[in-house]
């Protein structure tokens, strides 16, 4: 049936995140998995599936199963669609469980790119990340390092076409900081005003420091099982009602406009149809927010406002606390913690369970999760609910 749960989330573990040095990614992963097992009321021996989100340094590889001490797994893989991987992992876990390949699947993202001598920018775009051989060498030669300039160019294109402003981007950052102040897991606690946003230095114009996500050391683990089994476990089950991917592909052609339409559109349409709900049923959005701009364009592509109207749509603060569309309620990647797609996914689990405390949204029946990867090259959508159907 179209709107039966595909599976359910039974456990969530989030380690302390941020500038925590001296531990490897796999060490953070072990802690997150232990927290998730405790949360679910399961033991490590109950786990028979492990899906690992490939991280940028590549040290979370399939051999991590040994370091983590798993045995006799009937499902294991490392998955990579960059920031969008959380959604793909959720799909594969649910399919494997329904197919009988595994019963309890751990999804984990862990990373430790920061060190005492390597900060956020260098960890993602430092010289060690840029080969010089062949055409790949062009990026470094033109000074095009990492994601910052690429997303800045997308944001500039949106501003040019629709009159979107840096103040409108700022409204997103300000709202998420206010959410972060309500979350015990968030890294950034200092109050942010629009003036603070406007005064923050440019990283890659038009993007300012406060338009850009954090980079964090840490890990998140999510335990997926069948909807039936989840009902017997410790936590209120969070049912997976719909999911989809869309990878728009190469954008280096003049007839493609990734700044204007992302994979959120198609993956959103498929996921909503699968869940049997409409956009109006969504009480809170947890959207991938590598940059403020990403939130804005994703909202447009999911249809919360018309294409090009994202700027005015967010400017009134409707994404923040007390707003009409509470979004990124843990502070997101901008102010909470940067665990790729596991940032929105983890906060969605909290909200769907009703365990958000001071940041709990009132309408938590249906939660929309997006994850975006590469330079708008990959997208996944998940729809979660405490209800078993749409």
């Amino acid at each position, binding site marked *: 049936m179209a709107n039966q749960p595909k599976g359910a989330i039974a456990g969530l573990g989030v380690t302390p995140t941020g500038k925590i040095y001296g531990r490897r990614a796999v060490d953070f992963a072990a802690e997150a998995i232990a927290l998730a097992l405790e949360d679910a009321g399961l033991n490590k021996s109950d786990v028979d599936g492990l899906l690992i989100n490939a991280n940028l340094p590549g040290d979370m590889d399939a051999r991590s199963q040994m370091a983590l001490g798993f045995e006799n797994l009937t499902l294991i893989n490392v998955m990579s669609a960059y920031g969008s991987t959380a959604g793909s992992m959720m799909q594969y876990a649910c399919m494997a469980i329904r197919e009988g390949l595994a019963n309890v699947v751990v999804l984990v993202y862990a990373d430790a790119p920061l060190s005492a001598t390597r900060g956020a920018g260098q960890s993602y775009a430092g010289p060690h990340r840029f080969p010089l051989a062949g*055409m790949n060498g062009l990026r470094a030669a*033109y000074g*095009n*390092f990492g994601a910052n300039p690429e997303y800045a160019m997308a944001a500039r294109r949106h501003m040019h076409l629709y009159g979107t402003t840096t103040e409108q981007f700022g409204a997103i950052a300000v709202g998420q900081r206010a959410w972060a102040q309500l979350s015990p897991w968030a890294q950034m606690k200092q109050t942010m005003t629009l003036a603070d946003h406007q005064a923050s230095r440019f990283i890659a114009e*038009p993007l300012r420091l406060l338009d850009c996500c954090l980079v964090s050391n840490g890990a998140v683990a999510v335990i997926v099982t069948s909807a039936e089994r989840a009902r017997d476990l410790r936590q209120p089950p969070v049912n997976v009602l719909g999911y989809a991917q869309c990878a728009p592909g190469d954008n*280096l052609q003049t007839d493609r406009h990734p700044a204007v339409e992302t994979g959120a559109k198609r993956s959103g349409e498929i996921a909503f149809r699968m869940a049997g709900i409409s956009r109006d049923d969504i009480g809170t959005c947890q959207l991938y927010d590598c940059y403020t701009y990403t939130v804005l364009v994703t909202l447009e592509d999911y249809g919360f406002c018309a294409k090009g109207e994202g700027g005015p749509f967010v400017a009134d603060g409707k994404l923040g606390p007390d707003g009409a569309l509470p979004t990124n309620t843990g502070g997101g990647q901008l102010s909470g913690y940067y665990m790729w797609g596991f940032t929105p996914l983890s906060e969605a689990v909290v909200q769907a369970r009703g365990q958000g405390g001071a940041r709990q949204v009132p309408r938590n029946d249906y939660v929309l999760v997006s994850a975006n990867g590469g330079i708008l090259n990959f997208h996944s959508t998940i729809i979660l609910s405490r209800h078993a159907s749409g």
Partner: protein
Amino acid sequence: MATKPVPIPDETSAPFFDGARNGRLMLQYCSACARWSFPVRERCPHCFSAALEWRQASGRGSLYTFTIMHQVMNPGFASAVPYNIAQIDLAEGVRMTSNIVDAPNDALLIGMPLEAVFEEVGENVCLPKFRPVAG
């Protein structure tokens, strides 16, 4: 002082870099579907034919979007900031990333017409960059 990174041409990219050294913007052209592509590929991304050949492109295009980089991500660019990075829509239907030269950053306008120029960035290595031309 650190220098900017210089690409190392390899076998598959040699026609592109050889062209740049001789003042020509070389791209792959598919003789099966008559469309162009960039960067180098084994098969045409449009029709998936293997009938790709290198041809000289016009070097003409327009500014699709750009950014001004302030963050120093590489020591070779420490004295270059703030510098521009631009996406250029070429007449051939290919979108290239490069730098705009011969224009101050505050003169860049989306849609402005551009043409390729070639800059020697290392021993025997040249890069296509773009400069404004009268519309």
